[in-house]
């Protein structure tokens, strides 16, 4: 295809968007609406993931060493613990350190005058790579000779995992449904455009136009609408996200919940959101346009 021919087809496609005024507007509006809903669920999923990621960074398993082991023997277990998969980092805390840490949480130090460090055990603070594998990692720690007891908050981990799974599945299912709706809407718009131009298409076929020559303006029309929809939805998502995240921050305030949860700044999610919107918008536009024109190319 020659450059001047491609330029002509591009122009025809763009002209098509504006000559089908209301239909194009409706199509762009539906695509924007679908992308906003998809984007909203993706934002929730991203924030939940980030939140769980933070929790993972902070989550730790405590492995208490058998009382019978000396500090030197207890320290020698570190290599075994490090070799367990899913262990990201390990910190040894001796009896004395454990007592100091404990005492530091109280103001009145006279409470500990009669207690010595033997009340505490040597321990390892074990940091995990993946919180979802907390159960199996705890089991592996228990199996290490010299570890007397393992303390892992698996219940909380399971709760987070459940929340993350539900959000991810809902986001995925909803996105797929909305993708089909957008595709259908785009295809209907271009199909109508193709129907109103069926005589023109028949003439094109009769004078020897190739299928790609006929198809390209409709694909361009779909693409322009897809990109417009993606751009509009991105701007609205930006506005809505900032508004919602500032409201959440305001309502949680500086209490514990506010300290635990902070929405990701928009700048951090902006690039993936824009890329996702554009890719989906372009795909919907191109496929919708190509699907719509298919029936007219059979003669």
């Amino acid at each position, binding site marked *: *295809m*020659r450059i*001047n*021919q491609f330029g*002509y087809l591009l122009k025809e496609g763009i002209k098509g968007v504006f000559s089908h005024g209301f239909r194009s507007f409706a199509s762009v509006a539906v695509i924007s609406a679908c992308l906003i809903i998809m984007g909203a669920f993706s934002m929730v999923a991203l924030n939940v993931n980030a939140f769980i990621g933070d929790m993972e960074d902070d989550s730790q398993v405590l492995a208490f060493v058998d009382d019978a082991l000396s500090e030197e023997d207890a320290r020698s277990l570190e290599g075994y613990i490090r070799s367990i998969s899913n262990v990201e980092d390990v910190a040894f805390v001796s009896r004395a350190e454990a007592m100091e840490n404990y005492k530091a949480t109280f103001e009145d130090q006279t409470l500990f005058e009669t207690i010595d460090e033997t009340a505490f055990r040597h321990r390892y603070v074990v940091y995990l790579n993946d919180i979802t594998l907390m159960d199996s990692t705890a089991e592996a720690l228990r199996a290490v000779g010299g570890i007397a007891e393992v303390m892992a908050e698996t219940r909380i981990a399971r709760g987070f995992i459940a929340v993350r799974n539900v959000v991810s599945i809902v986001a995925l299912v909803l996105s797929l449904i909305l993708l089909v709706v957008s595709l259908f809407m785009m295809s209907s718009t271009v199909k109508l455009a193709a129907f109103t131009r069926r*005589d*023109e298409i*028949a*003439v*094109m*076929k*009769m*004078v*020897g*136009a*190739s*299928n790609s*020559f006929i198809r390209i303006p409709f694909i361009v029309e779909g693409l322009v609408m897809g990109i417009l929809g993606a751009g509009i939805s991105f701007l609205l998502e930006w506005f809505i996200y900032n508004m919602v995240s500032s409201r959440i921050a305001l309502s949680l305030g500086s209490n514990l919940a506010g300290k635990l949860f902070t929405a990701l700044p928009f700048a951090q999610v902006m690039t993936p959101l824009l890329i996702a919107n554009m890719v989906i918008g372009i795909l919907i536009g191109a496929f919708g346009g190509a699907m719509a024109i298919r029936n007219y190319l059979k*003669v």
Partner: protein
Amino acid sequence: MVILKDVKVTYPGNKKPTLLDLDLTIRDGEFVFLVGPSGSGKSTIIKLLTGEIRANGGKIKVNRFDLRTIKRHNLPKLRRTLGVIFQDFRLIDDMTVYENVAFAMRVVGASDQDIRKRVPYVLKLVGLENCGSRLPRELSGGEQQRVAIARALVNSPETIIADEPTGNLDPAKSLEIMLLLRKINELGTTVLVVTHEKELVNAFGKRVVVLENGVLISDEEGGYFGKRDE
């Protein structure tokens, strides 16, 4: 050049064939009238020649293309060697006369420079050199058919196929169109005209092929159409 040999066409759901063992050869530069009553198979022949339908049997060659084996993606190449004219003109309403003709060149990838050179020439050939900026609805039926002829002609086809080109025109305009087609033929293009117009056919004294019930019943140089009714 058009060659049809033992061509059979039966439409799905029909027991009776629409065309039966049809043999017809049109040599380069010929002017041929294809006539016959409704349902005789004339339109089917046009659809076969333009690759809209495929035959159930026999051989068909149109301007170097073997239509038994032609691949779908080569149909545009076949159609670029043909110029097709319809009874209802099939012009694009929101394009000017110039744009309607230029459109056919654009479709086949002609450059802007070639379009600017060729379209005025063809419009002059059909006598519409002053109508380039007008819309089809502003023209008479005869003028609209001239635009359609210009469009069919603009890519210099080897063969022009005219399907009832005068069906919507009064006798005077019909004669004008037929004279124009003869002029095009004299310039070297093969012309096949499907028509019902007895007077026109008989006035021109060209080769006449008569079809009836899908069978070729007469093929005569300087033939006469309408003997059966008279």
